């Protein structure tokens, strides 16, 4: 039974209160547009964190687990990963996956926007690095990005607004090693405040970034954006599972239907335009579930590309053991440093594109006998236990190898015909297999990273194959492009088929780059929100909604 009541017609209905949804809500509300955001979860409960005591390692994966299939919060939905080599990770609540990201912050490189032109494979983006650059700079302020500007892996102009973290012993070892090897190395850029900024406290390097920031230093948008959005008048509806984007007889969107997960009641929220920001799995899920007579294969899916070309940055690790004892368990967890030496296509390799390496925190003693980042092989128990802990705790470091993922239509998100979530909405199946290019790329980078660790003084180096629970970056499933026959949205994130539906999240990325994508998806959200503002007078709107607004 639908309880339509007299819901107000908003200028903009946003689905999802994660980074892109928050950036869009803030910018549109600043211009006086009325905005309502529907979020399937609620605010994170930071009182559940136990990060300051010895309970940290035991409890970190309880409430703030990154894998929704393990977390099984009522806001989560089932994801069938039986046919996927990588499991997607996400946070379904206010803040989106910024609540659990490690906050490593990057821009794409200029060549990432021109992969077809440069390498003859995949696709060019319908915009360039230069077009996105000013928006990168603005979101970097809002997200309190800290680090060191002037990285020669980028064109001049990538300035970092906040100062860097201190160098630690392992930073010194690896930077000196890369000096000798002649390879790139740079202090980590992170959306973590190192000084008080935008409502954030200075980071105290607790090293728990990936499980909810205890100290209020990491730029998750529940902290950086939503308080401002609320002050600007944005209405945030929590625990609202959006089932469908509805369309009128004119083919344009009229709003969304959602279920209040607490009361179980169904509502229709009308709006003049709809922005879907539900991540690379949630967004195609919603569009596919919004099929209608006019849109029989899903909303905006005349190209057949909704859900296809899933990219997830396959990830391996290279771990070194050292003789000396140094602090390796404190933060920032996500990246103390990185290397982009091998991030683009080289003439001396048998694969296209490349990988980013990130130097990450190792965790405490319990992590030394776990599978991350060591892999699941090896016998660490019984008579090997204490020697394993001694060798690994305080005497190890690892490079995380993040491979650029090239798009393939075989990798996809589809609706599950047999399983629904608690609200009766179809769940999803993920089909994903790494390409031979990816495997060759990872093999090469693992060999080079092994050289790096050895040059830094590691007496033993080990590596893992691509790891399974590493799908932090869910990209490509609602491809952006100029051609409506092979892409879903245009260069401003507007649906080719439904002119008042926009998509703002990582699903629009035509290629993945080799770096963490939050900087890019939020810069796109800001740019595309400003396009909505600039075009607001010519924006097509469903007459069904206009009539309702006048009547209301």
């Amino acid at each position, binding site marked *: 039974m639908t309880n339509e009541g007299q819901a107000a017609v908003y200028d903009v209905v946003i689905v999802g209160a994660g980074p892109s949804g928050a950036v869009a809500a803030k910018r549109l509300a600043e211009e006086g547009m009325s905005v309502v955001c529907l979020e399937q979860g609620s605010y994170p409960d930071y009182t559940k964190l*136990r*990060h*300051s*005591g*010895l*309970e*940290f*390692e*035991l*409890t970190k994966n*309880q409430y703030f687990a990154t894998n929704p299939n393990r977390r099984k919060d009522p806001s989560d939905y089932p994801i069938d990963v039986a046919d996927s080599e990588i499991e997607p990770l996400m946070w379904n609540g206010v803040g989106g996956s910024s609540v659990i990201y490690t906050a490593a912050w990057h821009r794409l*490189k*200029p*060549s990432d*926007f*021109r992969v077809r032109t440069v390498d003859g494979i995949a696709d060019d983006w319908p915009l*360039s*690095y*230069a077009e996105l650059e000013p928006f990168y700079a603005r979101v970097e302020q809002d997200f309190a990005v800290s680090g*060191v500007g*002037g*990285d*020669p*892996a*980028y064109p001049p102009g990538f300035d970092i607004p906040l100062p*860097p*973290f*201190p*160098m630690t012993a392992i930073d010194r070892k690896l*930077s000196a090693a890369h*000096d000798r090897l*002649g390879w*790139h*190395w*740079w*202090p980590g850029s992170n959306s973590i405040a190192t000084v008080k900024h935008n409502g954030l406290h200075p980071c*105290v*390097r*607790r090293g*728990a970034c990936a499980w909810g920031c205890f*100290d209020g230093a990491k730029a998750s948008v529940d902290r950086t954006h939503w308080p401002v959005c609320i002050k600007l008048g944005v209405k945030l509806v929590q625990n609202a599972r959006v089932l469908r984007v509805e369309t009128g007889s004119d083919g344009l969107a009229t709003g969304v239907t959602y279920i209040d997960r607490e009361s179980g009641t169904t509502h229709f929220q009308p709006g003049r335009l709809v922005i879907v920001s539900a991540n690379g799995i949630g967004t195609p899920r919603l569009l596919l579930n919004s099929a209608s007579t006019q849109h029989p294969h899903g909303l905006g899916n005349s190209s057949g590309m909704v859900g296809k070309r899933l990219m997830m940055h396959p990830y391996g690790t290279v771990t070194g053991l050292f003789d000396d*004892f140094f602090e390796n*368990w*404190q933060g920032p967890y996500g990246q103390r440093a990185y290397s*982009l*030496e091998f991030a*683009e*296509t080289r003439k001396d390799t048998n694969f296209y594109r490349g990988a980013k390496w990130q130097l990450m925190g190792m965790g*405490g*003693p*319990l992590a030394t*006998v*776990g599978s991350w980042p060591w892999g699941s092989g090896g016998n660490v*128990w*019984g008579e090997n*236990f*204490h*020697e394993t802990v001694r060798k690994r*705790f*305080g005497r190890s470091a690892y490079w995380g190898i993040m491979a650029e993922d090239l798009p393939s239509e075989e990798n996809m998100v589809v609706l599950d015909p047999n399983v629904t979530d608690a609200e009766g909405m179809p769940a999803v199946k993920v089909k994903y297999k790494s390409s031979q290019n990816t495997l060759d790329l990872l093999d090469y980078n693992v060999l080079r990273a092994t050289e790096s660790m050895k040059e830094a003084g590691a007496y033993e180096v080990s590596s893992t194959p691509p790891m399974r629970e590493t799908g932090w970056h869910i990209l490509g499933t609602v491809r952006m492009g100029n051609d409506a026959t092979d892409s879903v949205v245009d260069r401003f994130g507007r649906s080719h088929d439904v002119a008042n539906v926009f998509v703002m999240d990582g699903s629009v990325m035509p290629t993945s780059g080799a770096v963490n994508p939050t900087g890019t998806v939020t810069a796109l959200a800001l740019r595309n929100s400003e396009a909505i503002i600039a075009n607001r007078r010519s924006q097509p709107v469903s007459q069904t909604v206009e009539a309702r607004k006048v009547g209301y």
Partner: protein
Amino acid sequence: MTTDDIHLLQSKIEWVADALIPKDRDHAMPSASEVGIFERLLPRALKERDDMAPSFFRALARLPEDSPPNPLEAIRALGSDDFYVISFLIAGAYFLDEAVTGKLRYPGQEALYETPDYDEIMETVERVQERGSVYLDVPEPL
């Protein structure tokens, strides 16, 4: 079986815990039972991870009361999921002991208030900058 009934399982918990974490004289590290895994640490761990406690007791129920000839193999024979639950909670409990973490020089995840040595950072990155650019120069599209 619940955490309240743990007193019924002392002998089983101690052989399981010591099979996973035995005494190590070379590193002067105590076994799990020596640090009070049964009396003190495991009840605390199970209280912290009450979500894992039912799985823990179910897995434990499949093991014999007394230590078998090859105890570690007996625990592994439970399968990877049950082995993970048991080993994670036993090791997690072991590392709740401050004497153990003290021997390892692990103070927990501390709040650190440090001022970076900006001169050191700049000297380091300037060496990288001197090696030149590390990106493909791509012309803007027409």
